[in-house]
């Protein structure tokens, strides 16, 4: 039984994959799963690159994630692509013996896969032949060379072993200009900021090159999830990023339900979507507040912070937790809010959104504020495509991709809503997207709550061995959770591809060639989460 009720039929182009690919590359075999709309393209080490390049280029598929798995004595690499036009999936799957650790790189051409390959190289010890920039990425200089924590034989629960190395990381400098110097930011910086390090190379006027260094917050979520039951792993999914906990929990549950073919009761489906939109609303208010703070607009910041806190309190009143932790469970929800609480939710969301619109009006008429955002932090449409950007950042630069609309999962098939798009790609476009998406979220909540089906809020999930992908449009964009359970119902592999991981990749493009004082503003308009990126 299909969990994700797919409304659209995949187009003929997707239907043809099983014919086109073997015709072009005789080594490639295609197995099509017509219920899930997944075409499994079984490739060989030599055909992996041409097939992926063809999918990304000619066939215009989007790159979702790279899943690296070590199963028994075989590497299983799954390159997940989806076609935003025809609503179908293409899993490019490669299997090779463990001893063979080299794979042809696609990241040198498909830039969206760059970080995925670097991560896999660092954590698994796979060598991606032809990738121009491998080396230290997730694990910093104090981690010993050649120890790959994602390998099966590595014990995740061994006590924290701190490896003090003599080598000191020196930021690689690529700017050649007289008097060029490095402006280091972080990892501990600003009043409240998630830990990350930025190397800014400059001659003083503008930022010639920005090199962000992440994974200061690498908590090894994917590794420590292994061997846990789904119920425990859900705790980790929720804590990937506190600011979009529900979205990640949702994606995890969807992967689980998809794998175990569980039908979520209608009431739970509606409420899940309503809560996801509630979280999106709060998240966007928080980012808007951050943008006001970055430009020093104190009253607007205070107004935004009041609305944010009101949302947090409302969430706690309706769901029992300010950040929606502990609300989800595979198969449904843990709690069944009564009509009175749902009434409160509906009424308060409307009132709060009215206040948010007032804030929007105020900001629209503050020219000094707009001056700081307009034409700052530009992301062009080509960059969205090349870097595979997702979420509000992509939609402010002309992208229309939104998994809610593309795949109509959960209760999104029941409501009509719009995916706002802007084309300017600057800071102000991103701000407008946030406000417009907040308005859509409010409308979705109202429509969903108009007619909440009655009945149970959860169904029983019977774990079984296998793997499935759960995907959700998180507040920051598309997130993909790959879950593989063993026969005992324990997690064998949990792979998360988050929107922040995607969008941080292109942050440097937006911020370079602007002056220092624009840095915090571009940072705020991206509104990304390092916890979500680093995992």
């Amino acid at each position, binding site marked *: 039984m299909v969990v994700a009720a797919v409304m659209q039929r995949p187009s003929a182009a997707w239907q043809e994959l099983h014919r086109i690919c073997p015709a072009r590359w005789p080594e490639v075999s295609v197995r099509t799963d017509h219920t899930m709309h997944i075409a499994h393209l079984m490739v060989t080490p030599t055909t992996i690159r041409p097939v992926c390049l063809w999918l990304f280029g000619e066939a215009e598929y989007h790159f979702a994630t790279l899943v690296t798995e070590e199963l028994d004595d075989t590497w299983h690499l799954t390159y997940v692509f989806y076609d935003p036009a025809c609503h179908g999936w293409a899993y490019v799957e490669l299997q090779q013996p463990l001893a063979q650790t080299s794979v042809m790189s696609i990241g040198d051409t498909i830039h969206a896969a760059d970080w995925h390959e670097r991560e896999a190289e660092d954590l698994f010890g796979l060598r991606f032949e032809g990738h121009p920039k491998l080396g230290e990425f997730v694990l*910093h200089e*104090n981690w010993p060379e050649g120890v790959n924590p994602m390998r099966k034989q*590595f014990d*995740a*629960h*061994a006590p*924290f072993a*701190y490896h003090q190395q003599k080598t000191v990381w020196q930021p690689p400098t690529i700017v050649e200009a007289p008097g060029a110097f490095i402006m280091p930011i972080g*990892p*501990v910086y*600003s*009043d409240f*900021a*998630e*830990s990350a390090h930025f190397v800014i190379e400059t001659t003083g006027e503008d930022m010639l090159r920005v090199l962000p260094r992440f994974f*200061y*917050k*690498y*908590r*090894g979520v994917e*590794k*420590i999830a292994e061997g846990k039951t789904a*119920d425990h792993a859900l*705790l*980790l999914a929720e*804590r*990937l*990023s*506190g*600011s979009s*906990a529900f979205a990640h929990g949702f994606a995890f549950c969807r992967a689980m339900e998809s794998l175990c073919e569980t039908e979520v009761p209608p009431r739970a489906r509606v409420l899940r979507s309503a809560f996801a939109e509630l979280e999106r609303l709060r998240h966007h208010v*928080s980012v808007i507040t951050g943008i006001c703070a970055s430009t020093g*607009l104190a*009253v*607007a910041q*205070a*107004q935004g*912070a*009041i609305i*944010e*806190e009101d949302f*947090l*309190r*409302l969430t*706690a*009143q309706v769901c029992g*937790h*300010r*950040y929606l*932790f*502990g609300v989800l*469970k595979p198969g449904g929800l*843990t709690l069944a809010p009564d009509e009175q609480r749902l009434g409160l939710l509906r009424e308060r969301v409307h009132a709060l959104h009215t206040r948010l619109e007032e804030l929007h009006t*105020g900001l629209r008429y*503050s020219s*000094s504020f707009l001056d700081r955002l307009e034409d700052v932090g530009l992301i062009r449409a080509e960059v969205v495509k090349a870097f595979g950007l997702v979420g509000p950042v992509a939609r402010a630069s002309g992208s229309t991709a939104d998994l809610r609309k593309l795949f109509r999962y959960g209760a999104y098939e029941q409501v009509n809503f719009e995916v706002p798009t802007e084309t300017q790609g600057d800071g102000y476009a991103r701000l407008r997207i946030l406000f417009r998406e907040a308005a859509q979220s409010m409308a979705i909540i109202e429509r969903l709550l108009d007619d909440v089906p009655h009945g149970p809020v959860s169904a029983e999930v019977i774990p079984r061995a296998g793997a499935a992908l759960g995907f959700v449009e998180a507040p920051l964009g598309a997130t993909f959770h790959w879950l593989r359970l063993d026969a005992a119902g324990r997690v064998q592999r949990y792979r998360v591809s988050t929107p922040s991981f995607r969008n941080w990749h292109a942050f440097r493009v937006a911020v370079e060639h602007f002056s220092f004082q624009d840095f915090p503003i571009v940072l705020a308009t991206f509104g990304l989460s*390092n*916890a*979500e990126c*680093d995992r």
Partner: protein
Amino acid sequence: MFNWFYTGLKTGIRTTPYPAKTDAAPGVSPGRPRATRFDAQVATVLAMRCPTGALVRHQRGVDVDYRHCVHCSRCRRDTGSAVMDWSQDYDWGALGAQAERAGHRFRDIFGHSLHIRFLDAGACGACMSEARQLNNPYYNIHRLGFFITPTPRDADILLVAGPVTDAMRIPLQKTYAAMPEPKRVVAMGVCALSGGVFGPSFISAGGVAQVIPVDVLVPGCPPPPLAILHGLLLAVERTMPSLLTMRVAETET
């Protein structure tokens, strides 16, 4: 600009009465389980339900260890008739193992003006979000003489969230070392207390106390703003500490 001025005035005062009075507004705290009396069989089932081992089965019921409790609600939802008591309080701050440092006169020096450096040692973002709320008009810690500072040079208190990842270990030590004496450390969130859901593991130290001495512990996942405020007030000895574990025997009195 006048528009903003007017908007500010129109909004009026929103600030919480805490710490002078208890703040009873709905939603300021997610609440947490209290030690509850059960018979032994039920207690065993409930303790088993806890994914983090915060519930400890006891002869007369279930004790709660707040260093591990992430208030995931698994002990109060879908449990049939046996439900843990749930308190909606927020004064959760407790003293660390080496809190009693005599002769520092910390309160005399910093009782009315205190600078806080926040440090993210691998937190999921919810803790930071809650700490950031301290600056919003609802909590407005400036009225208590608390200020957030961007540099540890000016800081009297280090407010740390997160389980302390491998990469953040040295920055944490450096930040602590850069602060002038006398100084105190407040660890907020279950991750910073025990590693929470993340650790201890190969990459996380499993708590701030593994790396630097900690004076005040604020449990919660995440601790709501008022709990953090309680912890900060506790660090300057302006309020009474709470306890990290709650036993059934204590509920009887």
